[in-house]
C-alpha cells in the first residue's frame, strides 16, 4: 500500500472517530430535548444558547465524579466491561460507506475506511462482541441487579440477533453481495432496498432497537425494576462509557439501517442537477447524515412513546413473532428470485 493511502486512511479514521463522538455526545442532548418536547417541557436550555453546551457539562460532571469500585467486585473484569462496550461500539463505523469518492489531484479517495467483502458480517461480529461488555460488567459487579440485567441483555441480544441475521439474509438475496459498498451502489437512483424488502426492514428495525438496548426493549437497564441493571454499580466515567456506548450504537445502527435500506449516500435526482463529482459526493454524505439523524429521531420518538416490554413478551415477540416472520420473508424472497431467474 502506498504511503499516501495510509496517511489518507488514518486521517479519515480520526475524522470519523471524532464525528462519531460528537454525534453521540449531541444525541444525549437531542434525547433530552426530544423527551422534553414530547412531554410538553423545554429540556436543557441553561448551559449556552439553547443549552447547547449541556453535553460538555455532563461530560465534565462524569469525569469529576468519584470513582467507586465495589470491594467484592472482580476489579479487572469490572474495568474491562465498559472498555469492551466502548471499543466495539467505535469499531463498527469502519466498514460503513460514509460517502462516494473524492477526486483530489487525479487520485480517487473513497470515503469508506475499509471496503470489506463481508462488511455486514463484520458488523454482526462486532455487535455480538458488544454483548460481552454488558455481560462482563454485570457479572463483575457482584450485585444481583447487575447480574439480572446482564442475563437479560445476553438472552435478549442472542434472541434478536437471530431474527436480525435472517432479515439480512433476505436482503443479501436481493443484493447478491455482502459488501456494504456494493449494496449502496446498487441502490443508486431510488432503488432503495426498503421498497424491495419492507418486511425485512421492519424486522431489522425492531431487532435494531433490541440490539441497542433502546426502549421498548431496554430491559437490561430498566430503572424501575433493576435500578439501572448491568451498570448499577458503575460510577464516574465508566458509567459514562456505558451510556455513551449506547448512543454510539444508536448512531451506528442508524447508519447501518440508512446504508442497507435507505440507499446510503444516494440522493434522488442528484444526476439530473449536473454538479461536479466532488460536490455530488459531499452532498451525498450530507444527505446520508440527514437520513441517520432521521433514524436517530425515530429511535428517540419510539422511546418516548412506547412503554417497556415485559420479559416474557419480549421473548415471545422474538422467538414466536419475528423469527417465523423472518423465515417467511427469506422463503418469499427466495421463491421470487428462483422463478424470476428461471425465465
Amino acid at each position, binding site marked *: 500500500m502506498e504511503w499516501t493511502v495510509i496517511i489518507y486512511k488514518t486521517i479519515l479514521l480520526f475524522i470519523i472517530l471524532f464525528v462519531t463522538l460528537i454525534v453521540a455526545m449531541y444525541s444525549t442532548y437531542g434525547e433530552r430535548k426530544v423527551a422534553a*418536547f*414530547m*412531554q*410538553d*417541557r423545554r429540556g436543557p436550555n441553561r448551559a449556552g444558547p439553547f443549552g447547547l453546551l449541556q453535553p460538555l457539562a455532563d461530560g465534565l460532571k462524569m469525569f469529576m465524579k468519584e470513582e467507586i469500585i465495589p470491594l467484592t467486585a472482580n476489579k479487572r473484569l469490572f474495568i474491562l466491561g465498559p472498555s469492551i462496550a466502548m471499543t466495539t461500539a467505535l469499531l463498527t463505523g469502519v466498514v460503513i460507506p460514509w460517502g462516494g469518492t473524492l477526486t483530489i489531484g487525479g487520485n480517487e479517495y473513497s470515503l469508506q475506511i475499509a471496503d470489506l467483502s463481508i462488511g455486514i458480517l463484520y458488523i454482526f461480529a462486532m455487535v455480538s462482541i458488544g454483548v460481552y461488555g454488558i455481560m462482563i460488567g454485570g457479572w463483575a459487579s457482584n450485585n444481583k441487579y447487575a447480574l439480572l440485567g446482564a442475563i437479560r441483555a445476553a438472552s435478549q441480544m442472542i434472541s434478536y440477533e437471530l431474527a436480525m441475521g435472517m432479515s439480512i439474509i433476505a436482503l443479501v438475496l436481493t443484493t447478491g453481495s455482502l459488501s456494504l459498498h456494493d449494496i449502496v451502489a446498487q441502490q443508486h437512483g431510488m432503488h432503495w432496498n426498503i421498497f424491495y424488502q419492507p418486511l425485512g426492514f421492519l424486522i431489522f428495525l425492531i431487532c435494531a432497537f433490541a440490539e441497542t438496548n433502546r426502549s421498548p426493549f431496554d430491559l437490561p437497564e430498566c430503572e424501575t425494576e433493576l435500578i439501572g441493571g448491568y451498570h448499577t454499580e458503575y460510577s464516574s466515567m465508566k458509567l459514562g462509557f456505558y451510556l455513551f456506548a449506547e448512543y454510539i450504537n444508536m448512531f451506528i445502527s442508524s447508519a447501518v439501517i440508512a446504508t442497507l435500506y435507505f440507499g446510503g449516500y444516494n440522493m434522488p435526482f442528484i444526476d439530473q442537477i449536473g454538479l461536479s463529482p466532488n460536490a455530488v459526493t459531499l452532498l451525498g454524505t450530507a444527505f446520508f447524515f440527514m437520513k441517520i439523524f432521521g433514524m436517530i429521531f425515530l429511535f428517540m*420518538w*419510539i422511546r418516548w*412513546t*412506547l412503554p417497556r416490554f415485559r420479559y416474557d413478551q419480549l421473548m415471545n415477540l422474538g422467538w414466536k413473532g419475528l423469527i417465523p416472520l423472518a423465515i417467511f420473508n427469506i422463503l418469499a424472497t427466495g421463491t421470487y428470485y428462483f422463478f424470476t431467474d428461471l425465465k
Partner: protein
Amino acid sequence: MKSLTNRSKVVSDKKMTFMEWIYIPAIIKGMSITLKHFFGKKATINYPEQKREFSKVYRGQHVLKRDDLGRERCTACGLCAVACPAEAITMVAAERKPGEENLYREEKYAAIYEINMIRCIFCGDCEEACPKEAIFLTDRIVASEYERAPFIYGKDTLVEPVDPDKRIDISARQTEKVLKFKMDERFAHNK
C-alpha cells in the same frame, strides 16, 4: 354504576383482533400523539426571565411597613409572635429616646425583629394579628441559600426602605372589603 366522567372505558379480556394483535396501528397512533405534543405549546415557564403572575393575595416574604412619614409602624407588641403557629418570629422591644420621633411611630419599637424563614409556613396569621398594620406578606419569594443561618431575616431585610419610590406596594392586598373594614372608628389610631 354511573361514572363520574364520560371518559371511562369498559375493559374486557376478549380475544384481540388481527389488527390489534400486530400492534402496529396502535403504535402509529401513539407516535402521532407524541408528535403532536412535540410541536405543541410548552407548559414550562423560563422562570427567572419570565414570571408567572401571582395571586393578588399571594403569601410570600414579609415586609415591615413604614408610615407616610417614614417611621416604623411596629411597636413590638409581640402579637405576631404569639399568633405565629410555627414560632418563627422573635423580637426584642426597646423604648424610643427623645429625638428618635422621626424613626419610630410609637414610644416603643422593635430593636431586634427576626423571622426564621425556614420555620415560617407563610400562613399570614402575623398579618392578621398585627394591630398596627406593620407586617404584611408580599408576592416576593424567599431566596434560596446554601446555609441555614441566612434564612433568619432581621430588620435589615424585613423593614422597607424609607425612600418613597422603593416602598413595597401592598395595596393589592387591601381589597375593598378590607378597606371598608378599616374604616371602622376602632382603627382610627392607625391613620
